[in-house]
Each structure stands twice: as C-alpha cells, then as structure tokens.
C-alpha cells in the first residue's frame, strides 16, 4: 500500500514538473514573439497617423507578445519593460506606460533612454504632484544609491572588497606603509556604503512597494470604501505614482510624493 502511495506521489510530482516545464516558452518561441512584436511595432508606427485605431490594435499585439515573453518565458529584462512602456505611451495609455517604465527602471536605473521616456510620460500626465523637499534632497545627496543598478553596486562592492584586501596585504608586507593603509580604509568604507545601499534596495524590493494609477481617473478616498469622503478636491488621474502603505481587501492605502495619504480601489492601479 505504501509502495503504491509512493509511486502515485512520484507520478504526480513528475507530472507536475513536466507540466510546469511545458508551460515555459522555448528559446525559439521567445525569439519568434520578439520578432513579431518588433514587426507589429513598426507597422503600428506606420499606421498611427493614417489609421490610429488600427495602430492601437497593433500596439496591443506588441504588448501581448512582450508580456508573454516576461510571464511565460520567465525573462526579466528592463528593455522589455521599456518597449512595453513605449507601446503603451504611443497608444495613449500614460498610466501603464509609466508603470512599465518604472518596472524597467528597477532593472536598469541608469539607462538614459528610459529616463528620457519616463520623463516624457510623466510630463503628459494630468496630475503633477509636488515632491517633498526632503525626498528631493535625499535623491540629490544619495544619487549613487538611486542611479546605480543592484548589479553595478554588487560588482563595485566586490571590486572594492578585493582592492581593500590586496592593499591590506600590502600594508602587512610593506612594514605598515601608510599609503596602503589609507587605500585599504577608503575602499572598505566606500564598499560598506555600497553594501548598505544594496541592502536598502533588497529591503525596498520586498517591503517598500510602489505603484501607478492606471485608470483614467479614480476618486481617492479617506477610507477603504466608497462611502468615505474624497481625499482630494479632484480625482487622481492615470500615471500618478504612489508608495503603497497597506493593502486591504479591494483597497490600497497609498502615499503620494507630496506626503498626502489616501485609499484607492485595487483595480485602479498597478504595482511596480
């Protein structure tokens, strides 16, 4: 009896594993999807002036293909999100374009094209929420924390660690040479800052979630229900970015860059 149970369990496990592997796209399928997306994107760009409605349908096809590459192909690449952001932007969906640019920015924060397009998309949205002075100062002071990708930070930390250790060894051999001691101290200090920045990034990934409003407009409320009064005199519009403070049933508690807090329906926004 136990043997049968074991065999059944193994069959289920093997079956599930093979099903899961069958769900993932092959490299060939991913290449095809990428090629089709590029073709559709070109066709849409050609049609945008003469037949916008047809162009929008093609942009939808582009987005669908890139989404499949991300979701079914398991590929996480900032350029894919960037391309999706472009397609959304060209079809006039500011909210989702900003959402995808922000997703791309997590993977390549120092990409100038992405920064340019994100800036343009932000300039097109209706709500221009001011940024708190403290946040602006922090972003200026710790530009290296905001501008460097995790990969770059990890690489630099590793290099600084190696340089620090080498100069530490030199200090031991060169009869306590002061120059070696200074280099070792500086590299370890800078490496420590970068490692701290990495830890903050990892923490933010897990705990500090952000989002973007994707509906054309949504009335932000003072509580998690339609019966609560509105938080602002005007509804929030597509493209408004926020920090996610809490998730409760069908509602999200958000904080805008101005520091104002409100509740919005979960369906009205996308989480980065």
């Amino acid at each position, binding site marked *: 009896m136990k043997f049968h149970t074991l065999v059944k369990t193994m069959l289920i496990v093997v079956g599930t594993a093979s099903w899961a592997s069958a769900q993932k796209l092959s490299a060939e399928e*991913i*290449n095809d999807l*990428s090629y089709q997306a*590029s073709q559709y*994107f070109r066709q849409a760009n050609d049609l*945008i*002036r*003469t*037949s*916008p*409605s047809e162009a929008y349908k093609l942009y939808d096809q582009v987005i669908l293909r890139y989404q499949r*590459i991300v979701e079914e*192909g*398991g*590929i*996480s*690449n*900032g*350029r*894919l999100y*960037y*391309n999706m952001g*472009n397609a959304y*932007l*060209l*079809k*006039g969906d500011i909210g989702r374009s900003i959402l995808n640019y922000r997703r791309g920015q997590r*993977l*390549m924060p120092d990409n100038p*094209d992405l920064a*340019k*397009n994100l800036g*343009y*998309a932000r*300039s*097109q949205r209706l709500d221009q929420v001011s940024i708190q002075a403290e946040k602006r100062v922090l972003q200026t002071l710790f530009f290296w924390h905001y501008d460097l*990708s*995790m*990969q770059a930070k*990890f690489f630099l930390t*590793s*290099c600084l*660690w*190696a*340089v*620090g*250790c*080498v100069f*530490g*060894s030199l200090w*031991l*051999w060169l009869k306590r040479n002061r120059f070696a001691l200074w280099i070792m101290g500086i590299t370890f200090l800078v490496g420590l800052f970068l490692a701290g920045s*990495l830890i903050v990034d*990892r923490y933010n990934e897990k705990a500090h979630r952000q989002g973007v409003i994707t509906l054309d407009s949504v009335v932000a409320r003072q509580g998690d229900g339609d019966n609560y009064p509105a938080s602002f005199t005007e509804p929030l519009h597509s493209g408004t970015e926020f920090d996610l403070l809490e998730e409760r049933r069908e509602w999200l508690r958000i904080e805008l860059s101005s520091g104002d807090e409100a509740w919005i329906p979960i369906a009205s926004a996308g989480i980065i």
Partner: protein
Amino acid sequence: MRHREIIQAGWAAAVILLIGAVQAKAQPIRVGAAVQREIYVGEPFQFQIQIDGYEQAGEVDLGPLDRFSPRSMGGQNQSSSMTTIINGQKSQSKTLRYVMVYQLTAPSAGSVLIPSLTVEVKGQKYTTNPITINVLKPGVTDKIGLEMGISQTDGYVGQPLVLMMTWYVGANLGSYNFNIPALRDAEHFVIEDMPAPPGVGGELIQMELYGEQITARQNEGVYQGNRCLEITFGKILIPIKPGTIQIGGASVICNVEVTSRSRSRNPMDDFFSGGLFSRREYERFSSSAPGITLDIKALPSEGRPADFSGLVGRYSIATTAGPVKVNVGDPITLTIMIGGELLRLVDMPNLAALPAMADNFKIPTSQSAPKVSGNRKIFTQTIRAIHDQVTEIPAIPLSYFDVDQGAYFTTYSEAIPLEVLATKVVTAGQALSAQVASQASEIEAVRTGIAANYEGPELLENTAFSPMAAMVRPGYIVLWTGPLGLLITSGLVQLMRRNSPGRQQARRKAHSGSQAIRRLKRIDSQSKSAAEEAADIMRRYVGARFNQTSQSLTARDCRVILSENRADEKIVDQFCELLERCEQSRFAGGLAENDSVDLREIKEAVKVLDKQLKS
C-alpha cells in the same frame, strides 16, 4: 466458490472485449438537433446540432432558420475515450461527438416548427431532425415597460443616429433578456457604443446586453402612474445603405418577483426572520416597444470636397497655439480640437497637405496620441516656423457632409497670428570674415519625445539580479575569496614571523633603551629603594641589549660587555660608576648625602650609551 468467480470474471471479460471490438469499428456519423425546454416569444434560446462519430464542426446551411435570427455561439468537442484493463488485457474505446451551438429567437407564440437542416460532414450531407417547439407567450404587467426611440427617422448614409432605449422597472427582477433587432442588423447598420448614455443626472450603472457590459443611466421615473426606476441606454447606428429601413420592435423578457413567501409554517423558521428560509417567486413577463421606419438617403456625389474623409453629421474645428512669439525653428504646440457626434471616425487633419502650412512650417511626422474630452477630440502637434516671414498659422479646414443642409460643407478654424523673429547664428566663417555668409542652418537637439524601442538578442537576456545568486558564480567567488585568502595568509605569516625567538630578541634589543628610560622616569627619587630599582633597570638594559641574564650582571660584567661591544670608554666608565654607586647603596644599606643617586644623571647616561651603541 472460487470456480464460480472465475467463470463470472471470464464472462465479464468476454462482454467487455465484445463491446470494445464493436466500438473499435469506425463509429457511424449521425447528426441530430436539440433545443432547451422552456421557450418564450422574443427571447433567445439555445439550439444544438450534435454530430456523433466525428470530432469537428460540420458546415451547416442556416437558410431555413432565417426567421429565427440564428447566431452562432461556437462549438465544443465532446469526444470521450475509455480504457479497460482486465486480467492484463487492455481495450480502448472512443466515442466521437461534436456539438455546435446556435442562439435562436422564436418569432411567434404557439407551436413552431424548427425545420431540418443540412449539415455537411466529411463531404457527406446529413439532415437534422425537425423539432416542433411550444413557444410560450410571457405575461404582461404594468411593472415593466420598454420604449425605443431614435434621434431622427430620416438621414444619410454614414450619419450617426442615436437609438435610445428606456426601460421602466417597478419590481424586483431576476434575469432579463433584451431582443433589439436593430442592434443585430449588420446588413443595414454599423453599431457603435455611445461615449455616455443619453439623458442627464441619475446614476451610471453597468448592465448586460447581448453578453456585453454597457453603461446605462438610472433615474427615478413614472410608468403608467406607478413610481419606478427609469433605465436609459443607447447605441449609435450608422446606416450603410440608402433606402427605407424597417427597425423591428424591441422587447424585454424578465423574471419579475411576484411574491416572497415562507417555506413552512414551522415556528423555528420565523425565528430566522425569513432570510435563509424564505422563497422568492418569479414569473415571466415581457414588454415590447414598436418598431421604427427609417428613410436613409445616399450621399450626393456632386460637390464632394477632395479632402472629404467620410464624416457625416455636425462637426466643428478650432485651434490654439503657443507660444505665438517665437524665433525661427522654435517649437510651437498646435492644438486642434474637433467636435462632433462620432469622434471615433475623426482623424487628425493632414497638415502637410495644406500649402500654407507645408510652405511655412516644419511639420514632423510623429504626433502624440489624440485625447477625447467630452464631445471633442483633441490632437496635439509640434510645428516650427521655417522662416521669419511667417505671420500666422493658417486656418485649418475640416470637410464633412452637413446633414442639416443636405450638402457638403467645409468649416475652418480661425487663423492664429504669429510673430516670428529671425534666429541669429554666428558661424565660424562669419567670425573670421564678415563677407562669407554661412548657408548652414543651426541644428537643434529636440529633448522632448521618446527614444526608440530596443531590439536584438540583448532584449531577451534575463537580467534579473539577486546578490545571493551572484555570490555563487565562479567570478564572484574568486573576487571575494582570493584577496581575502591573500590577506589572511599575509596576516598569519606576519604573526608567525613576529613570534620567532630571533625576532623577539631583536625587538627587545631595539626597545631596550627607551624601555629603560621609561622605567627610570617612573622611579620616585625620594624612596629608599630608588637606587636599588635604578641598578636593576641598568642591569636589565645591558641584559636586553646584549642578550644576557640581567640578574647575574655586576658593574664589572657590564664594563666588560660594553667594552667588548666597542662602546665609548668614557661613557662606559660613567655608566658603570653610576651602577656601582647604586649597588653600593643596595648592599651598604644607604649612601652618604654626597653619594646619593641622581636619577637624571642615570637617564642621561643610558640615553647617551644607547645612542652610541645604536650608531
């Protein structure tokens, strides 16, 4: 008993094998039709064509069903297979079946015959069985009502006409079904959604119509003297053919709650206040609205403008621009607002085709996506004046067929005055010689807009990054552990070298002088043991300096050792004399006043001797 079981198993196996053998043969193709039981006039019902022996859809001639307004709802492969294993013998059987589903609407009450249909399967033609259905006529009540109206009953091909439906609901409803033939009349109309339901005020609600969610307006109303909900919704009909078009009457069939009663007289049921145990009763009622006749005229061919894009109705165009005081080449944002009835068909006017625009302005091919605001569609385009003679942005035409006048009409936006200043560009040639005039135009980088998409293999690299995963990559393992290993090894080697006897001796020798002076400074010159302590320090100094056992050294030994090591005679004499005096103090129980130990003198002697020995 066992014998009997074997016989039974044998019979069972034989029967199953026989069934398997029969089913393994090619299954004959049979085609049949079926409908659901309860059918009401005007309400859609499902009609199924079942093909046995084949697992793909057949080709059905729906001609005989015209009066039932057939609509395909798709199909489903319902084939099934069964595998049986008895005594190791495996048999497999498969039943093939495909079901095609259609939605029909009964045209009249009473006994109605659904005729047999011809279905082509694998090149062979089969006929379905005819079915006689009993179509019920739902009751009529003053609790529900339906009205249908249209914005105008005469118009032109391409003119958007608003079909408005008003539904009065004065009771609780269960399910409901609309039958609005105009919305399924693809032969005469293109159907479009309205940006907002007709009417004003009230509350916007979502409701289902032909399987789709539409937005309707809900108000309080009165129907046949009773207060009720008034639900208004509409669609835009665009006639595509001229002539007289008869729109059939619309109807709605609803399950209307007639009473709510208790299931039993059990007193316990009353305790639960009827919520869980009460039963609502519904009855089918219908309401209908009469049909409408439309008179649709064709668009005239004479007088059709060259730029006519097919807009029919009432349209307007207006423009704004900013800034209006610019230099040559500066960007000017031109906003074109087109108002009208059906904005989906409105495209951006082709500015490059207007000579007054093309000659005076640089018009990029890219433009931002249009926005719809209220009943206006807004296009935004950046243009740049190409010379300083430009005085205005010209009027932009919009051609459409004016249904009020029955003629083509071209409306214009107002021209916008501009002040364009020449841009002064000082070139290198002009700087060197004023006679050489540069023909080059200044190239200005445009910072707005968006950068192009990425393509190529780098798009498909997985760049997701995890520090923990990176740590186990060979490159990073080497980078983290290699230098660390070097540092640790260096530290260990240095530590081992530091603790070797030779090194310790050398260190002691090197530090002996400074250590002796430090100790001498700590001696209290007034104490009785000062001389004794000073003598000990001096002996220790000589011992550490020349690797001797300090306890056994005398002044005489020190003199010998120091002289052997080429110390200056005078300094050695002074050192040894001081040591002797200190020893005398120790062994003689004290010195006379003039023989007292001068610690400063001893410190100086040690310092000088140490310096001389090191040099």
